[in-house]
């Protein structure tokens, strides 16, 4: 009964919010400032020719820096709560077709990630997309039973997780030490610095996203046994 009330009230709130949103979007004012045109004007000076990348890594690069810190926070929490190795078991499904497929797909995915990273400066793409593709490749490999190195407490794992942030921070602090504003790239170097940061971020984002999968709590043995019994 209580649950039903909860569902009903949640539904009522959602409907009311939806109706209010519908109403305000219909009568919405026209914005007096157009950031899109400001971006278009400043694009030639940004070092890249794609507006999203220019916003993410130049005009509002500080937001991106903090977002990378958010990702690191998530990865660190997952690492802190990681099961002890003894409690872990290899989680994978056994299909011959999957094995053969993944084995051929993985190198392609790395290539796709590299392309996405490179494409970011001229068209949709960039570090987040490339990193997600890398992480996806690692998850596929792991699920098909191939040994993917664990992202655990070793220095190498933690180094790979923080690599992007370290590089980003080096550039940020470098600009400060050079007497510029934070993350104000010198005009000549803007494109190269952005690519450098994105390349480092791609690796870290890939590792962090995969680590969230790798460090997710394993199903308990009792859960798995009851599942097996149900299958029988």
């Amino acid at each position: 009964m209580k649950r039903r009330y909860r569902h009903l009230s949640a539904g009522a709130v959602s409907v009311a919010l939806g109706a209010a949103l519908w109403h305000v979007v219909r009568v919405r004012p026209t914005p007096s400032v157009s950031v899109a045109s400001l971006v278009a004007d400043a694009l030639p000076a940004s070092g890249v020719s794609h507006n999203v990348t220019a916003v993410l890594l130049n005009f509002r690069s500080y937001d991106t820096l903090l977002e990378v810190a958010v990702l690191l926070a998530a990865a660190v929490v997952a690492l802190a709560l990681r099961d002890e190795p003894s409690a872990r078991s290899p989680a994978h499904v056994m299909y011959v077709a999957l094995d053969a497929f993944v084995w051929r797909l993985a190198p392609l995915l790395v290539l796709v990630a590299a392309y996405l990273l490179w494409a970011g400066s001229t068209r949709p793409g960039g570090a987040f997309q490339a990193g997600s593709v890398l992480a996806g490749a690692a998850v596929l490999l792991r699920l098909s039973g191939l040994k993917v190195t664990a992202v655990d407490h070793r220095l190498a794992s933690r180094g790979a997780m923080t690599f992007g942030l370290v590089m980003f921070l080096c550039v940020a602090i470098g600009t400060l030490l050079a007497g510029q504003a934070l993350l104000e790239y010198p005009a000549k170097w803007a494109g190269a610095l952005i690519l450098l940061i994105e390349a480092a971020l791609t690796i870290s984002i890939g590792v962090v996203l995969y680590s969230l999968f790798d460090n997710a709590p394993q199903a308990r043995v009792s859960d798995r046994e009851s599942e097996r019994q149900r299958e029988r």
Partner: protein
Amino acid sequence: MSAQSLLPWMLMVPLSWATLMVLLAQQRDAITRVVNVVGALVLVGLSVALYAGVAQEGLAVHALGGWSAPLGIALRADGLAATLVVLTAVVSSACGLYAMTSERAARTNGKSAPRYFWPLFWLLITALNGIWLAGDLFNLYVGLELLGLSAVGLVALGGSEASLSSALRYLMAALLGSLAYLLGVALMYAAYGTLALPELAELITREPMTQLAIALMTVGLCLKTALFPLHGWLPPAHGVALTPVSAMLSALVVKGSFYILFRLWFEVAPDVVTPLAAQGLGILGAGAVLWGGWQALRESSLKMLVAHSTVAQLGYLFIFFPLAVGTGATAAALATQGMLLHVVAHALAKSAMFLASGTLIASVGRGGVADLAGVGRHMPMSLFAFGLAGVSLMGLPPSGGFNAKWLLLQSALASGQWFWLLVLLGGGLLTAGYVFRVFRESFLESPDDAGQFTKTPRAYDLFALTLAAMSVALGLASRAPLRFMTNGLAVMAGVQ
């Protein structure tokens, strides 16, 4: 360095230290300890320099990336932001030193300290400074996310099943709050095309989309500030966390979302918000004061008692709204002063109280209020710190808490809203009730108290006492910090 060039360092320092601490996570104790102490010193030094710089030069603005808003983002520091940066540095340094002492004590007893405390600790400071100094609505959202996630992580570090479940509950509340806020940000962007706070303040008009945006952000931020009746997640999270974490959560983290709410209502959209909505927030605040106080009075665990007290004390912050919206310039100014003083005094007093409670619990070995019997004779200094913090929370003179409540009271009289007086008085009585309850139990003599108290490090009391003393001292010297904090705020414009 000028205040303007100091601004980005307030973020770069804690963020660098967070990264360093991930890399040093498995290192020997001595190395992390040295690095952390150096970090705390640098942070306090830079914060004080920023305070001095803003005091001398006035508002400091740093255009990030060299792009001025609305294309880029700016960091801004007025007197209020600079004060909160210093407060963050002081409180978190004390909590950090406490955590270091307790790690060392755990190691010598052969127990292990939680791994990965320090990266999250520094990320929390990064997020707080990011929020105090932000000049952009979306940037504030990123700050809120970083704050929420690192706070949830710190709660989860407790490792027990209870800490995991309260952390998860905290996470859900924090996410829901963030999403409501983000939806509001999206609406604001749709309506005005910019997210920079000063630009928005000039453009904003009272129309449906803006009103819905402000309402959504207000609800989200109230959930994150644990305003009654959205406070359910707070006591378990603050009560179960490690002691220095509880102290930082209650002292600083909940103030982050409140600070955004204040900026939103009084700097960005003063013409959009209505006295009716402000009265609503005030009533919920009154509910928090009374309900939180009542729960603290009945609570059997010491840390949960202090956590419920946080719910109650946060209520006072919301009584500020009906005193400052739609009232005269004098009442609004008095209310603002009282509220800001309460933010600082509560941060100092509550962190002191949590640290003192943690020490008492470490000594007794159990966390119940009733287990404290006999502790008065063995732990006089911890109990003294607890009491000193209690003086400020109760609002007894001379203390920061007293001055804050006195100013709120004056404002209630000046605006003719005498009924808030009853809430202020009732809240004070309830606070006195739960503080004295702890004292009564502590001074009881227990028959066999010879060997049952564990010796705790002396340094514990030093940190708690310092913070408690500062909250009391704030009552003796509130004029200068108050003038600095309120300098340049729009809500003070009528009286300056």
